């Protein structure tokens, strides 16, 4: 129990954060793309995330919640070290969230302002999350090199979100907006690929303990499928985007599915790099875990409630399946 419970919660936390990146990733991506669209298209883009964004955002609360519940000692260290990016992210999330609701209700005079704030909030949140991820991977390092690394991820994570946003629009829209989304996806795919590559190269450089895991023989061999599969999926995405017919009616989900695969692999790679540490090089998940009694109390709740959450999330996505037409929404 003392061994397995922290491992379970580390897995659950990873799962929640992965869900967050994929789900709120497409919300934030659509926010980033918003300034590029025409006024009526903006309404449809927002309508494409309308029923989902609130629940999507909740995954980060669960992620940080599990950090707090299961690993209270690491929770404080991690969040105090990331004070500036976390504060920026929260400011961004506040702006994005309220702009979503205000833009539909305020006098039309202010709608343009709320659209701009929606985009700004999304941009600040996306970059701040990249900064947080970068800081985390370097083991909360504060050397110039690790700070540059954090900035590198801050600038590249938005590319992934843009691609997720465009892929979601392919599923939810048709007509000229669909074509625009396809164009956006095409423009974002190479920057994202480059970013992924840079991050993969830089990560072992910036953290010796990660390098040790990936580049020692034969330990590194077991993890070879991750980079290989990632390359394969990425090539597949390029192939999909090369010809619009490969994403035509009934097949438009392929790009999003491919991106989920890519995020999953990146998540697994990251988990392998970090575990069993919770703060790289400083603290393991067992050293920072709550008492077993407290973990067990939450464990029973989690294994009952989490499947229910996934089930009703699935039901709600079923209810709102299909393309949005401009008639369905105001």
């Amino acid at each position, binding site marked *: 129990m003392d061994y397995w419970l922290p491992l379970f919660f580390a897995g659950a936390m990873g799962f929640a954060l992965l869900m967050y990146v994929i789900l709120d990733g497409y919300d934030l991506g659509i926010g980033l793309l918003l300034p590029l669209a025409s006024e009526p298209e903006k309404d449809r883009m927002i309508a494409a995330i309308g029923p989902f964004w609130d629940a999507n*955002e909740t995954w980060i609360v669960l992620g940080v919640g599990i950090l707090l519940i299961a690993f209270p*000692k690491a*929770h404080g260290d991690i969040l105090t070290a990331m004070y500036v990016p*976390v504060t920026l992210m929260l400011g961004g999330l*506040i702006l994005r969230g309220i702009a979503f609701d205000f833009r*539909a209700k305020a006098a039309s005079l202010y709608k343009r302002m709320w659209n701009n704030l929606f985009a700004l909030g999304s941009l600040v949140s996306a970059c701040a999350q990249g900064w947080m991820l970068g800081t985390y991977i370097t083991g909360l390092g504060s050397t110039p090199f690790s700070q540059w690394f954090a900035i590198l991820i801050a600038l590249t994570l938005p590319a992934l979100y843009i691609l997720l946003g465009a892929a979601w629009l392919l599923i939810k829209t048709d007509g000229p907006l669909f074509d625009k989304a396809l164009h956006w996806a095409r423009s974002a795919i190479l920057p994202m690929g480059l970013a992924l590559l840079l991050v993969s190269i830089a990560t072992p450089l910036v953290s010796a303990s990660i390098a040790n895991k990936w580049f020692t023989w034969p330990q590194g061999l077991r993890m070879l499928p991750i980079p290989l599969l990632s390359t394969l999926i990425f090539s597949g995405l390029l192939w999909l985007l090369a010809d619009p017919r490969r994403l035509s009616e009934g097949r438009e989900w392929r790009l999003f599915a491919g991106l989920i695969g890519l995020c999953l692999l990146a998540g697994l790679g990251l988990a392998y790099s970090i575990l069993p540490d919770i703060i790289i090089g400083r603290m393991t998940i067992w050293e920072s875990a709550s008492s077993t009694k407290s973990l067990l109390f939450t464990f029973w709740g989690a294994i009952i409630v989490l499947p229910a959450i996934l089930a009703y999330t699935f039901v709600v996505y079923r209810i709102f399946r299909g393309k949005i037409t401009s008639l369905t929404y105001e």
Partner: protein
Amino acid sequence: MFELDPLVLSRAQFAANISFHILFPSITLGLGWLLLFFRVRYTLSGDTHWENAYHFWVKTFALSFAIGVVSGITMSFQFGTNWPGFMERTGNISGPLLGYEVLTAFFLEATFLGVMLFGKARVSNRAHLVACALVAVGTTLSSFWILSLNSWMQTPTGYLIEDGVFHVDSWMAVIFNPSFPYRLAHMLIASMLTASFLVMGISARRMRLKVDGPGTAKVYKAVVVIAMVLAPLQVLVGDLHGLNTLEHQPAKLAAIEGVWETHSGVAFTLFGLPDETSRTTRYALEIPYAASLLLTHSFDGEIRGLNEFEGAHPPVAIVFWSFRIMVAVGMLMILVSWWAGWELLVRRRERPSDTLLRASVWMSFSGWVAVLAGWYVTEIGRQPWIVQGLLRARDVVADHSAGVMLGSFTGYMALYVFVLVSYIITLRHLSTKPAASLQGPGG
């Protein structure tokens, strides 16, 4: 030289965040149930006025909910960014309580809110009713868990301390700690009253502007009846809560009453200026024996004074005054709701008098004032402790520089003022719109 203390700034920032945050859940918690009531009334009677009421008020609900969610996320992160010691010491207790809030409430309300706001044309009426009910249940469950944790910080039970770290002895004793039932009841009624007076106030404005004629009048009457029942009930619950505080947090109670020295036959101070340097209340207007009578149910009952808690009692003036503001607003609520009841139910007037409507408009945000004042009493009244009697706030604060803290505090404040102003402007704007013009999905 005047120096900024990071502890003071961290406290001010958290106080600003939690004050801003609580405004919105205190609306949605009550309004969620009111919306369900409107939907049920329509389903049972087929009266489209209730459906219109739903369509109008769901907009305010969606807006308030969104602000509540994003400011709530801020709070959940600030436990770690500013008060890391709190989680390190009490994580075994506060962690699971917050965890259950996320698992049982946050996902439920956020997910079904989507169906509630956008799904009306896509699901059956019954399924939509279920979604509305689940959102209302979700917000209530959320308050259950967070108030349980807050109450535990006020009246901790069911714990053991080993090497400075709290461990759970009994979950039942932790969750259902002594002040929890009173605080939960007090807060649930407070949010029903906050929502009712907001609906009353905005409906009064709509009646004066002659928007949605008879429909608005029906909504107005319905919330008047709710307020008439709940406002006096709140006094009763508040009184019980006060007796509970007397038993478990005597220092807070002494600050509320401005009792400097332990004595019997204590007078109730209506007004006065508590002065901590001279440890007296200046210009006190007192009712002899009233405090003893209220709290101990006997004229010569003894009340423990602040002298017993020197160095460990809250700042007196702010607790003393917040309490009086809360009570005064509560009395105003009783007055206005009963006045409205007298006009609508006894005199059976078709249209309430213009004076009443004006008074109702003035009372639109009275719930906010009472809720904030009440929370200041309970939270500032717990100081200097973060967990009453066991853990001090200054021992758990993060070690940020004053510069960083000043930057984040200013940023948050600017954002909150901007959002609050936008919110009130938008509510005013919405209140001039006929419900029919707001129809269609999209909250």
